[in-house]
């Protein structure tokens, strides 16, 4: 009985008639001819559409007749069609990322190739001028974490583990308390702690910072040994310590961007980076005071497009995007309060030295940045 029903069922299997097969084959050859011919005619963008339409017609003929889907149980068609649904998802999501995100703009500081050697002959030797310069840079770059007096008690310090270094204590310096070794720390950072690399600062600024922070300590600083110079990658026999080598770790975006338009050395020098612009601006072009303040005080943490993120700070705290929704952006008053007082217990330091007109300009400037994304 079983074999009987088998036989009956087998009669239902569709056998492709030879004539149909030949017709389909002919149609496929004809369409091949058509697609080659049309590709020779310039239709602009339509060429692609036509070629894909013809290919899909051909593919459908093959699947429906040669592969029997037309006569087969529908579930096999559904199974096969599913693969194309997933392929479409794959393609659409991938293109979203590549074709619909904003233009990638890279801060040329990040792009800077090995920094030029120091202009000083022996920058590892401390001078009062270097210490004074270092103090200035310290106030702009370091106080958020290390505190105004370098005691490791800046507004952001409480969020950090390990805590930022207290420069008034002698012991425990990761790389050592010597000019060359602090210089090395500034260049490489101290991963995985929140101490980031400041290799984007000019070489002389980093020497100045090194001298300033070691000058804060309670005891005299020991002289640099040949090993210290070696560790720091500084050549004491060359003026300024020789050119620095910078490890080639660049983000993918930057790599893509460099493939696109790699600025030459002279272009890099001739242009100034303005975070409010999505393009390069000429050096000397008027830059608003607000833009200047932003790149001075805000860009390290909030990024060039106010999108927040952790460009410099590798702490576990994510710096929020500045958008119309953020609390500090609700009104001019709350903006002023946030900027002047900072957010104690958070990474946001206070910036008390701006005038109210500067703060007003900055507020509008940041609003403009935030509405760009």
């Amino acid at each position, binding site marked *: 009985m079983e074999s009987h029903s088998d036989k009956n069922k087998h009669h239902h299997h569709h056998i492709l008639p030879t004539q149909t097969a030949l017709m389909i*084959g002919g149609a496929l050859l004809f369409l091949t001819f058509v697609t080659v011919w049309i590709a020779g005619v310039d239709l602009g963008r339509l060429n692609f559409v036509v070629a894909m339409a013809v290919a899909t017609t051909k593919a459908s003929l093959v699947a429906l007749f040669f592969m029997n889907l037309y006569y087969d149980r529908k579930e096999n068609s559904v199974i096969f069609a599913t693969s194309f649904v997933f392929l479409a998802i794959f393609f659409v999501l991938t293109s979203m990322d590549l074709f619909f995100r904003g233009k990638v703009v890279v801060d040329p500081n990040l792009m800077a190739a090995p920094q030029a050697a120091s202009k000083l002959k022996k920058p590892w030797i401390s001078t009062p001028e270097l210490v004074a310069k270092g103090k200035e840079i310290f106030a702009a770059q370091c106080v958020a974490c290390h505190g105004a007096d370098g005691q490791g008690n800046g507004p952001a310090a409480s969020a950090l583990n390990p805590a930022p270094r207290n420069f008034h204590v002698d012991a425990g310096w990761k790389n050592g308390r010597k000019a060359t070794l602090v210089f090395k720390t500034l260049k490489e950072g101290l991963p995985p702690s929140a101490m980031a690399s400041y290799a984007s600062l000019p070489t002389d600024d980093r020497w100045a910072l090194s001298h300033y922070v070691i000058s804060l300590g309670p005891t005299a600083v020991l002289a640099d040994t040949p090993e210290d110079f070696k560790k720091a990658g500084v050549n004491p026999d060359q003026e300024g310590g020789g050119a620095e080598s910078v490890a080639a770790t660049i983000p993918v975006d930057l790599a893509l961007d460099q493939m696109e338009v790699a600025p030459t050395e002279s272009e890099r020098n001739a242009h100034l980076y303005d975070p409010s612009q999505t393009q390069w601006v000429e050096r000397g072009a008027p830059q608003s005071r607000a833009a200047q303040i932003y790149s001075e005080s805000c860009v390290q943490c909030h990024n060039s497009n106010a999108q927040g993120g952790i460009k410099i700070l590798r702490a576990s705290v994510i710096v929020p995007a500045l958008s119309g929704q953020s609390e500090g952006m609700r009104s001019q008053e709350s903006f002023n309060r946030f900027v002047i007082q900072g957010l104690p217990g958070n990474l946001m330091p206070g910036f008390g030295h701006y005038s109210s007109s500067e703060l007003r300009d900055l507020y509008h400037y940041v609003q403009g940045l935030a509405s760009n994304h």
Partner: protein
Amino acid sequence: MSNGENAVQHHHAHHFASADDEFEASKQGMWIFLVTEVLMFGGLFVAYGILRGLYPEMVHEAHKLLAVKMGAINTVVLITSSLTMALAVSSTQKGQRDRAILYLVATFLFACCFLVVKYFEYSAKFHHGLLPGAHFTNEELKDPKSPLFFSLYFMMTGLHGVHVLIGMGVIGWVLRRTLRGDFGPQFYTPVELVGFYWHFVDLVWIYLFPLLYLVG
């Protein structure tokens, strides 16, 4: 001529209720396998789409160096082989073993022909230094990103070529079994499923040809 007697003796595996169930299950398994094939080639097609979207001029200049005539000949060869494969299946279903053998041999030869043409194409590319990545030495193409196009060209046509080789292997296998008289109107699952595989190889080429050779 017919070898029906042999096929009647085909016994379906015991975990199937009937030979028909067995056939349907095998076929569905093959479709699911083909889904994974679509997704494997899919990655390359998406890469192609992205490359084209990012660097349309580069793709356009590079695609001009592909031999449209050879690609077109291979399209005709592959479509004809699909036709002979379909006829091999229907001949087996009708119990016409001699015809089925003839069609399978023809399909096999068309596959060889495809690879011979491909061989000439590849040699010409090698000769002109149109190679992927670091091996690219061609000086005619000015765009420094041109090697990317040829990386993709060789990956896509190479993976397809591997499928042609595997197809030839399985066609040879069903040919041998047909010669032995394993198949007839009652049992032809392997012939039909090898047919599916071969048609799929054709499907991929149907898209590769215009995308790479015609509208790059």
